């Protein structure tokens, strides 16, 4: 690890997620190595770094979509990658994911997108499910759009619908992959506020993968910076502290939007 900030806030509270010596690779192509960090309950944790550094790949490892080349991911101390698949599926039920491309199920309406999870994993009746789905959509400002299909709403609305779906089962941990992609600054800001409100209101732990500097500073409690060149984490800590005192010129360049000599 290149540099772990002295502000690394790993002491005391039991971590909700712990990443231990994680190596990520596609076949022989190593994306990142030696990733180790923890996410505490109810904090907003930002995974940042330039394009192509492996942020989204890290997210795929965290949500059980891709097995690590080495190392492990622990949820409340329980290993994600050494348990059997059925148990992993149970662990994943405590998790909500908002994908970069929204990934709304295109053949279902917004309401059905939220309701599908409630139908599959709860004993609620049809009316209760409909009400619960309407509430989740209202929480993200989409009341009245229940019967629209994903292709009929704007990018920002689809993003929020994706968030509503991720919240369907009241997850303990919420993952967001590049939430501000394709959003105008005002919509992106609204989404940030929404994430803060949900964290404060529901106590959800949030992991956000992003390179949106404004968003990083607005919502991040803790962060990790993945570097493309050294293929490992170059900084870890409160993004505001990293902004004030960057441990490496490339972290500084990223956070201060500086041009790097080519």
């Amino acid at each position, binding site marked *: 690890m290149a540099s772990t900030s002295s502000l690394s806030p790993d002491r005391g509270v039991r971590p909700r997620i712990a990443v231990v010596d994680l190596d990520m690779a596609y076949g022989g192509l190593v994306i990142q190595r030696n990733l180790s960090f923890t996410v505490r309950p109810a904090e907003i944790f930002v995974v940042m770094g330039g394009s192509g550094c492996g942020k989204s790949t890290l997210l795929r490892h965290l949500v059980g*979509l891709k097995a690590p080349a080495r190392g492990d991911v622990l949820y409340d101390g329980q290993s994600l990658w050494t348990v059997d698949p059925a148990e992993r599926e149970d662990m994943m039920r405590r998790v909500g994911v908002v994908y970069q*491309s929204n*990934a709304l199920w295109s053949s279902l309406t917004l309401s059905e997108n939220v309701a599908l*999870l409630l139908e599959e994993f709860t004993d609620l009746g049809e009316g209760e499910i409909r009400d619960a789905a309407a509430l989740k959509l209202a929480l993200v400002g989409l009341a009245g759009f229940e019967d629209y299909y994903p292709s009929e709403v704007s990018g920002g609305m689809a993003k929020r619908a994706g968030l509503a779906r991720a919240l369907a089962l009241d997850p303990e941990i919420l993952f967001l992959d590049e939430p501000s992609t394709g959003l105008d600054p005002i919509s992106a800001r609204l989404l940030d506020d929404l994430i803060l409100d949900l964290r404060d209101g529901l106590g959800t732990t949030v992991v956000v993968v992003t390179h949106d500097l404004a968003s990083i500073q607005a919502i991040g409690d803790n962060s990790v910076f993945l570097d493309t*060149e050294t293929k490992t984490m170059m900084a870890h800590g409160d993004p505001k502290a990293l902004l004030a005192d960057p441990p490496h010129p490339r972290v500084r360049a990223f956070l201060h939007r500086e041009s790097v000599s080519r």
Partner: protein
Amino acid sequence: MAAADPRRLYLPGDIEGPQGGGMTGTIATGASAATPGRPPWEVTVERLGHDACLVRLAGSWRLRDHLPRAAEVLRTSGSAPGVRRLTFDTAQLGAWDTGLLTFIRHLIEESERAGIEVDHTGLPVDVERLLALASTVPTHLMAPEPARLPWLGRAGTAVVDTGTAAVEVLTFVGEACAAFAGLFTGRVKIRWSQFGPLLHEVGVRALPIITLVGTLVGLILAFGAAVQLRQLGVQIFVADLVGISVSQEVGALITAIILAGRTGAAFAAQLGSMQVNEEIDALTTAGIPPVQFLVLPRMLALILMTPLLTIYTDLFGMVGGGLVAVTVLDLSLTTYVTRLIQVVTMTDFLMGLVRASVFGVLIALAGCLRGMQCGRSASGVGLATTSAVVTSIVLTIIADGLLSMIFSVLRL
């Protein structure tokens, strides 16, 4: 100035000839009768001292001006013995765009390859700045060199890849079988709101094309034999020919090929684009197995519909045969139908339906498998679709051959 022939390049021989001035003179000019009044491009190469050349660029240097190739200019100037240095004079340069940049960039590359030093001082400041921008590539953005493996390594990689692909196929087939088993034990539920539209799409909407193709195939079969049958005076056998071949084999085969192209391809494209949109990832992380939610209803719809559509194809194949019987072979409709009822047995139909069921399973598997294997790009969806059709048709033909052998062993 040699402006008589527009856009002509004078190669070294020409310079010695018409110009007669050794290395001094116009190499080429873009003068064109079509653009009077606007300065054309012009490049002149002059010898400076004993080891240098001056490239003088003048006029308009834009992409649409049919610019000369750098290599040709260099051949005239650089191939002269003793040239070690190239300088530019752009005082007379008019309008320019990336056409000029491309020309100069090539000229510099070619010169450096020939060991000629290039002096940039004569170039306009903007050109110089853009060239600098184009030539600096950040190190970390350069694509890594793909490792070149020795033949043993390549053979090993091929074996491992084949093994991985085989495991993928087996896993998919296993998951699909488990989903079907779950359907019978009640562990897996079909969402009827999704299944109904699928049945409609696979079955009802295929009827027009099946009607057309089925009739035409019956017609073609009957036509092919009509002349011979008439020569032998056994026109009535057209009913035997069409009835038996269509009900036993041709009906099922034609239906399968139509469904492979229509439905198998559609399944691959639908599942492929869901893969691209991360919809399948979203199902997986939500704990809903994609095979149960997406693949099972599609396979079920196709497996149910293939035999039903085959019966329909059989019917229209016989209608097609009937058209030829009545119009070309002068048989009465009653005679044709009576003969059909006499010769076509239930076994013939059942053989066709067994074939159709097997084809349905294969097309559904191939279509869904290729969709699920799709990469994460638009071109991946195209490849998945093509691959689904090819796999379905190949599997269908192989299965048809095997079933024919089995039926003949069973003396059916």
